[in-house]
C-alpha cells in the first residue's frame, strides 16, 4: 500500500529533475521529428498564398517577451512568406512590449530579401488603446497612426499613400498572447468585413476554434506546434531552433503524461486497496 500511496506523492524535485533533463537533453542530442500539418495551419498558409502580388497584409504584434519563443518563429515565417510572394507588409503593435518585435523582425528579413522601407514594408510602432485603435484603423489608419515608428508622417510614406482603412488591406493577421483576436473579430472582422487570421500562444488557442468554423478567422497557428508546422510549409524545412524546441516539447509532454498517469494510478490503487481492507474488516 505504501508504494501505491507514494506514487501519488513523489517529491516534486524528482519531477523537476526529469523535466529539466527532458528539456535540456534534446539541445545536445537533437532529433528530427515528422511534421504533421493540421488543417487550420494549411488554411493559414493558403490564405496568404492565394493573395495576388502587391496585396497588402497588416500584422499586429500583440505579445510581449514572455511569449517570444512561441510567436517569434511564427512572425519570422510569416514575414518570410509575405516577402517571398512580393506582398506589401504593414506591422504595428497594440501591446507596448510587442513594438520592438514589430520593428526588428521585418527589418532583419527585409535585408535578406532586399525590400525597401516605405515601399515594400512599413512599421507603424505601438499605439495604446487596443479597441480604439482597431476601430479607428477601420475608418482611417492615417489618424490612428499619424506617424510611423521612425517618426515620419505616414502620409509621406509611399506605401501608405493609397491605404486609408481596412478596405485597402487584403489581410489582417494578429499575433497574440492574449484575447486580442476576440477584439479583432468583434470590432474589425464583423464591422468592416476584412479577412482575418491569427497566430496565438497555446494558452489561448482552444478558445478560438469557434471562429474557424464561422470563417471569422481564415486560419489559426496555435502555439509552438502551429509555428513549426507553418515554418515547415513556408521554408520546406524547420529551422534548427524550432526543431530543437519541438524535440524538447515532445519529451516534456511524455514525461508529464507519464507522471500524471503515475499519480492517478497511485490514487486508484490506494482507493481500491482501502476499499478491500474495509470490506475485510467488516467481514
Amino acid at each position, binding site marked *: 500500500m505504501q508504494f501505491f500511496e507514494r506514487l*501519488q506523492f513523489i517529491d516534486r524535485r524528482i519531477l523537476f529533475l526529469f523535466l529539466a533533463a527532458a528539456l535540456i537533453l534534446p539541445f545536445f542530442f537533437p532529433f528530427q521529428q515528422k511534421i504533421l500539418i493540421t488543417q487550420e495551419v494549411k488554411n493559414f498558409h493558403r490564405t496568404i498564398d492565394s493573395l495576388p502580388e502587391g496585396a497588402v497584409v497588416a500584422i499586429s504584434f500583440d505579445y510581449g517577451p514572455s511569449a517570444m519563443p512561441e510567436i517569434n518563429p511564427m512572425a519570422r515565417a510569416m514575414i518570410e512568406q509575405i516577402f517571398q510572394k512580393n506582398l506589401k507588409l504593414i506591422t504595428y503593435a497594440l501591446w507596448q512590449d510587442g513594438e520592438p518585435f514589430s520593428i526588428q523582425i521585418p527589418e532583419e528579413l527585409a535585408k535578406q530579401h532586399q525590400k525597401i522601407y516605405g515601399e515594400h514594408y512599413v512599421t507603424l510602432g505601438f499605439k495604446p488603446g487596443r479597441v480604439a485603435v482597431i476601430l479607428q484603423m477601420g475608418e482611417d489608419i492615417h489618424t490612428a497612426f499619424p506617424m510611423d515608428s521612425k517618426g515620419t508622417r505616414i502620409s509621406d510614406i509611399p506605401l501608405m499613400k493609397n491605404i486609408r482603412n481596412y478596405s485597402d488591406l487584403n489581410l489582417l493577421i494578429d499575433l497574440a498572447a492574449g484575447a486580442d483576436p476576440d477584439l479583432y473579430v468583434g470590432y474589425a472582422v464583423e464591422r468592416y468585413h476584412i479577412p482575418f487570421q491569427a497566430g496565438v500562444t497555446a494558452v489561448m488557442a482552444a478558445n478560438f476554434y469557434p471562429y*474557424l468554423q464561422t470563417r471569422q478567422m481564415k486560419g489559426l497557428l496555435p502555439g509552438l506546434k502551429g509555428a513549426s508546422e507553418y515554418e515547415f510549409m513556408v521554408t520546406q524545412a524547420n529551422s534548427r531552433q524550432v526543431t530543437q524546441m519541438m524535440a524538447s516539447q515532445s519529451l516534456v509532454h511524455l514525461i508529464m503524461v507519464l507522471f500524471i498517469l503515475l499519480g492517478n494510478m497511485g490514487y486508484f490503487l490506494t482507493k481500491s486497496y482501502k476499499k478491500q481492507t474495509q470490506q475485510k474488516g467488516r467481514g
Partner: protein
Amino acid sequence: MVTIAIPWFIVLGFAGFTVYALFKPPLRRWVAISIALAVGMYMFFQFFTTTETPAGEYFNEWFQRFNKWAIIISGLTVILAVGNLLKIHILKVKKLQPGWGYSFITLLALFTMSLFGILGIQFQKEGIPWYQWTFRWLWKTFNVALDSSMFALLAFFMASAAYRAFRARNMEASLMLATAIIVMLGRVPVGDYITSAFPTLTSWILMFPNLAAQRGIMMGVALGAIATSLKIILGIERPYLGGAK
C-alpha cells in the same frame, strides 16, 4: 454653421457642468454619469447608421473623433499606474518600512527606464544615438529577461500541479484528464509515433466538442458583457466612480 457649432456647445456644456460641479459636491457624480451615458449612447447608435450621406458622414466624423480621444486617454492612464507605484514606494522609502530597499530599487528602475524611454525614442528631432542605444539595451537586458523568466517559472508549477492535483476524482475530472492527455500527446510529433490516432483525435476534439463548449461559453460571456455594458451606459453600475463616490 449651426451644425458645426452644436458639438462645441455640447463639449463646452460638459466642461461648464464640470466646473460648476467643482463647487457643488452633490452634482459631482452626475458629471461622470452623464458623460458615460452620452458617449455610450452615441457609440451604440452610431453602429447602426450608414455613412452614405453627408449627415451620415458627420455622424461618422464624431465616431472617429471619439476613437481618437479614446486612444489618447487610454495612453494617459499610464499616469495612474505610475502614480500608484510612486505613492506606495516613495512612502515605503520615506518611512524606511521593512523592504524599503526593494522599493528603492523599483523607483530607480522606473526613473531610469522612463528617462531613457522619453529621451531614447526621439521622433522629430534627430535622435541622440547614445540615448536610443541605451534604451534598447535596457529593454533587451531587463524587460526581456525578467518578463520571460517570470513566465517560464510557471512551467515548473504547471508540471507539479498537473502531477499532484490532477486526479480522476469523478466523471467530470476524468473527462478533462483524458482530453488533456490526448491533446498533450496529439499536439506533439511524439504522439503520432505512438499511434496516429492521437493527432486525428485531437483535431476532432478541437473542432467538435471543444468548439461546442467554447461557443456555448462564448455566447454566455457575450450576453454577460452586453448586460454589463448596458448597466455602465445607463449609470446603474458605476465602476468609473471608483473610490471617489
